[in-house]
């Protein structure tokens, strides 16, 4: 994409957009409050749906954790573009002489930060409620890699779903099949971090890292076709 004269440098644009999104979130606290309570509620409700015992907790609990993260994430991705639309701020953003890729990257970074905060609150509660022992370094690394992949794809799909008629349905319908590798790898690596008899974590972490790179790069490249009005 040819850069016009006097255009703001790319990274400065991204930083300004991230700051703008975080400030808007700080004022409304919609996503963080709702997302955290939702993730915690999932952990509690699944406890009734699945009979957890001390001996199988490390193998079953990671699945519950990631279902909670995925659902909380999808709620917040949907919110992020719906808010723009309701306030009419997306048009202003599109009129500004900035790279469409910067809009994607900024939104993906904001979503990752917000999902990260939700996860940082939920993880200790999860460890306590399900009575598991965690290797924290491994657990945090897995969570970070899994979150980047999930928000990387989620931000792209949410931008598409925001323009459809049944947007609440379209987002999970499109996003879940695409992010199955993230869910599988995150669940497996988390199980390993909790001391389950799973396979080695390294291939799963590599898969997550590979997915992150591919999905963010691909989304970055195609995002301009989605925002073009």
């Amino acid at each position, binding site marked *: 994409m040819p850069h016009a004269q006097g255009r703001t440098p790319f990274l400065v644009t991204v930083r300004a957009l991230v700051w703008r999104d975080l400030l808007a979130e700080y004022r409304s606290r919609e996503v963080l409050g709702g997302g955290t309570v939702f993730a915690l509620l999932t952990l509690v409700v699944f406890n009734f749906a699945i009979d957890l015992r001390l001996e199988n907790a490390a193998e079953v609990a990671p699945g519950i954790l990631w279902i909670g993260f995925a659902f909380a994430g999808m709620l917040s991705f949907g919110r992020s573009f719906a808010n723009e639309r309701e306030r009419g701020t997306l048009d202003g953003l599109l009129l500004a002489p900035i790279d469409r890729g910067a809009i994607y990257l900024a939104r993906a970074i904001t979503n990752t930060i917000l999902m990260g905060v939700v996860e940082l609150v939920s993880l200790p509660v999860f460890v306590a409620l399900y009575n598991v022992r965690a290797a924290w370094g491994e657990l945090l690394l897995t969570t970070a890699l899994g979150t980047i992949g999930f928000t990387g794809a989620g931000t792209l799909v949410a931008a598409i779903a925001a323009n459809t008629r049944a947007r609440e349905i379209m987002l999970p*319908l499109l996003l879940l*099949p695409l992010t199955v590798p993230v869910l*599988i790898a995150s669940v*497996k690596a988390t199980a390993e971090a909790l001391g389950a008899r799973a396979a080695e974590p390294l291939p799963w972490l590599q898969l997550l890292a590979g997915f992150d790179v591919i999905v963010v790069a691909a989304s970055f490249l195609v995002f301009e076709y989605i925002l073009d009005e």
Partner: protein
Amino acid sequence: MQPISLPDHPAKPVTGFHLDPKTLFLLGAATISMLAALYAALLYAPTERVQGAVQRIFYFHVPLAWTSYLAFFVVMVAGIGYLWKGTPFWDALGRASAEVGLLLTTMMLLTGSLWARPIWGTWWSWDARLTTTLLLWFIYVGYLMLRSSVDDERKAARYAAVIGIVGALDIPIIHQSVVWWRSLHPESVVLASGGPAMPQSMQLALLISLVAFTILYAVLVTLRLRIERLRQDIRLLRRRALERMA
């Protein structure tokens, strides 16, 4: 009032069921090759010693799998073509191929299930290839639902192109993840090292069936593409007529 000029691309409006020679030729080739495939699969190929007659579903299942993946590859190529050129042809091709691909994938899953019941003793197993195919099915169901839930035609085309590309890129990763997750599917008997592990008559039957299903795919996409092109024409004509009235 002047007559409204027709859009200048190949899908000329026709009355009744009227096919051009190329499509007619494809249709004839599909009929003949499909009859040959039926003969080869049901009569010519020998009965497998262990599995019995059930094994003959293989001659339909494998070509269905091949054409499904071909169809979604075409969806990806059409998506790239559309984002690059922006012409309605690429969009129509992507849509046609996705619909046909979904049909073929559904049939692949059903034939596989019919075979698995007597051989594995279960309708379904969470094996790597089955799981990948099921997710593939969901991705393209989403693709088609997305198309029908966007009102603006050009937006729908662009979104579909993006999902078509991202979905196809995702398939190898999904496959890798579910392979590590678990695998039970019979090892490939055709691409096995040291040559295919089956007699030549079976190979021949499979080959005929592969050709027949590939032609069938081409016919279905061609016909579906024609319908889509005619629909694009109608939309264009309607818009021009409205402009004239305004």
